[in-house]
């Protein structure tokens, strides 16, 4: 058998020109594609956020029409969730999972390329709806019926189908990751020896396969209600708009964990490396993630406390949500315990990782506040919720992605990034994020509603500050782009190990690693 395989070994290096990227089956190429795509989406979605913040700089309507404001708000959310954060994590999984488990590539390389190339088409369709009659989707990233059915612009049909193929992309990507992890580990790498990033992605992939089809079901019911006369979300025919919210959040809450679990994995690697200590509590980290994943299926209605659910449901979802804080607390404890008495140095990845732990915890606490049903009656649909999820998503998920880029970029391209610029980027982002989102806690508690382009005068000061922070944060990401491009183009050569004492198979190969790593699996002891 191996004779036949040998004859196929002529593709040692990448193909030349554009065809390398279009037709590739190489996990590193596909990882790179995912990461650049995600960054492009991050900038586009970010530009939309700037439109939103510019309008909110002062009370009154200054810059955009309310209709356009709604479209910006909706596309910003959809692009950041499905176009920036999720693809970035898939890109990291592509680059890292095969190297970390000692596999030659992803298990199903052609399907891997398909998963990626669906994304540009799907977002092309979604963005093109801006130019369609009636404008782009304007019903918020949660697209509640009947806003997204009875009152939706015609472009909703295009939106529905693009969500369908996005879902197909995520499911195929997740199947690929799961199969790689289950089937391609090097001999000797038992489950409990897997690096935590791999563990986090195993669980994430499981969540993806479980909930993306539910999202597909939700948009399919919308399509049928809009065009084919069904009554799923229409009480006049016996359905219920609240049914939409149940289905959406059955997808939506696991989805927020899809966006944070890989971040947990990343933080565990980086904190251990720069504390120069073994990670504290590996086993409990794994179990914490598993229990978070299981619990994430039974908390969805904490997004719906105010829709009028039966009392028993309000109580159940309150307690179940609070229960998630326990495994989350275990994780935070372990990260802190890892740093405790470590010989810590503060390179850029570590700065981002520490900041991740602290600010994510703030987001977790505001989540706990929101989980208290009677309190949520006050907080719901205010800027407090906006502050909460931006704390978990920006200095949570996004910072972890940036930490990962600084940490593994020298491995990927063989050059060290400029440490001074990296730290500058960190501090600008750190200040920008907090100036943007911390004041939103105050205006939210004071009652400023979300998703409205105008507001009462009393909120003016904090909104102005928030907008200033947002533009600072946005501008610093241009610096990030510059740093990454500069590193890829050249710089101090990186050693195979890159970071002193870094653990894991990926640090045993050259920087940059050969096009095909681990054609023969290494032995893990």
């Amino acid at each position, binding site marked *: 058998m191996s004779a*036949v395989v040998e004859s196929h070994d002529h593709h040692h290096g990448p193909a030349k020109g554009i*065809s*390398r990227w279009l037709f590739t089956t190489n996990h590193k190429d596909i990882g790179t594609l995912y990461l650049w795509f995600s960054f492009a989406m991050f900038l586009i979605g970010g530009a939309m956020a700037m439109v939103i913040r510019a309008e909110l700089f002062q009370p009154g309507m200054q810059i955009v029409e309310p209709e356009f404001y709604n479209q910006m708000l909706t596309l910003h959310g959809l692009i950041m969730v499905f176009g920036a954060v999720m693809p970035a994590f898939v890109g990291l999984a592509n680059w890292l999972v095969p190297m970390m488990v000692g596999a*030659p590539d992803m298990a199903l*390389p052609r399907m891997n390329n398909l998963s990626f190339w669906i994304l540009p088409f799907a977002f092309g369709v979604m963005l093109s709806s801006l130019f369609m009659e009636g404008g782009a989707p304007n019903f918020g990233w949660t697209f509640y019926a009947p806003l997204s059915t009875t009152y939706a612009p015609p472009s909703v049909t295009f939106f529905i189908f693009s969500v369908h193929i996005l879902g197909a992309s995520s499911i195929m990507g997740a199947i690929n990751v799961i*199969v790689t992890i289950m089937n391609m580990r090097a001999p000797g790498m038992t489950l409990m020896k897997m690096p935590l990033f791999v563990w986090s992605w195993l669980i994430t992939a499981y969540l993806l396969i479980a909930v993306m089809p539910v999202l597909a079901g939700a948009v399919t019911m919308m399509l049928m209600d809009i*065009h084919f006369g069904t009554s799923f979300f229409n009480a006049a025919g016996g359905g219920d708009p609240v049914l939409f919210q149940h289905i959406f959040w059955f997808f939506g809450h696991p989805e927020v964990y899809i966006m944070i679990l890989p971040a947990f994995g990343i933080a565990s690697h980086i904190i251990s490396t720069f504390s120069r200590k073994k990670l504290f509590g590996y086993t409990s980290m794994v179990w914490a993630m598993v229990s978070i994943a299981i619990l994430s299926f039974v908390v969805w209605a904490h997004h719906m406390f105010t829709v009028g659910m039966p009392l028993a449901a309000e109580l159940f979802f309150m307690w179940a949500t609070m229960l998630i804080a326990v495994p989350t607390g275990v994780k935070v404890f372990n990260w802190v315990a890892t740093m405790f008495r470590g010989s810590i140095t503060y390179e850029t990845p570590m700065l981002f990782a520490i900041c991740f732990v602290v600010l994510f915890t703030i987001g977790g606490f505001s989540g706990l506040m929101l989980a208290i049903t009677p309190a949520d009656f006050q907080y719901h649909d205010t800027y407090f919720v906006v502050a909460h999820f931006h704390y978990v998503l920006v200095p949570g998920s996004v910072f972890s992605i940036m930490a990962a880029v600084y940490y593994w970029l020298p491995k990927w391209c063989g050059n060290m990034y400029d440490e001074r610029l990296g730290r500058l980027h960190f501090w600008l982002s750190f200040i920008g994020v907090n100036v943007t989102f911390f004041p939103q806690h105050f205006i939210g508690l004071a009652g400023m509603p979300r998703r409205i382009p105008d507001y009462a005068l009393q909120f003016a000061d904090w909104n102005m500050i928030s907008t200033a922070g947002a533009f600072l944060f946005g501008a610093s990401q241009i610096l990030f782009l510059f740093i990454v491009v500069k590193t890829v183009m050249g710089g101090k050569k990186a050693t195979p190990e890159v970071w002193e004492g870094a653990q894991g198979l990926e640090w045993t190969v050259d920087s940059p690693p050969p096009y095909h790593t681990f054609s*023969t699996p290494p032995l893990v002891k």
Partner: protein
Amino acid sequence: MSGYEKYYVPDQSKLPIYAAFSMFVLIMGAAGTINAVGTGDSISKYVLYFGLALMGGTLFFWFKQVVQEHLAGLDSTQLNQSFVYGMAWFIFSEVMFFAAFFGALFYVRTFSVPWLGGEGEKGLANMLWQDFSPTWPLLTTPDQGSMYNIPNKSMSFPGWDKMLLWLPLWNTIVLLSSSVTVHMAHINLKANKKKKFNIWLGITVALAIFFVGLQALEYYEAYAHYGLTLNSGIYGSTFFMLTGFHGFHVMLGGFMLAVMLTRSVFYNHFKPGHHEHFGFEAASWYWHFVDVVWVMLFLFVYIL
């Protein structure tokens, strides 16, 4: 791990990006066509057909290539195992797709319809349409507006006396037997009895076609005689979406089995060994899955 085999990592391939492009054409065509219903636009329809053709073609060449690589002996046991896991997780994703629709059915039956009728903790909803009284199967709608087709009969169990004329019963018999026949085919394949394998598989495909025929007949009756349509309120919505997606999956599964039959009869592709017929095995798993979904439908849509 003795006798380590190299994992087959395929060369560059144009198929994935073609597939992504076909999806793009397909959804542009589909969305355009649906949005254009009732207007004069005729172009989107052709975009849709073009997308379907592209997609079909790409998938054909893709599967062809995988089969050829298998025949050339490129795939190791480990790669085969990747396909096994991949198919299992794909079926799990399909289970979750149906779960969304079953969940919707459960929700309207247990919560929203009774609430609209004034029952239960949120019975206040009855103030919207005060003379609405809930039943299941719901043959009326809370709002009696003319946009709804009010059916005169549901698809549920008609009583023991009329049982033999009740199509879903026959559909159940047909589909359950087809699960048995596909299993018989598998047993014979493993015993290297090719002829019997082909016959059992052929019977399975025939039963699949028969099922789709009966289902079409049932839909015809619903639309033509009972007045039950997609426009009949939530009962019609859940009934047609659940049975419709199931029927669509039956067609898909039946098509897969038909492809396997063709591969076996004309190309003699399958061998009894454990890793020599996963194409067939995957299709048969899919078939069992479709069967289980039907049993759930039979229980929750037709009987209970």
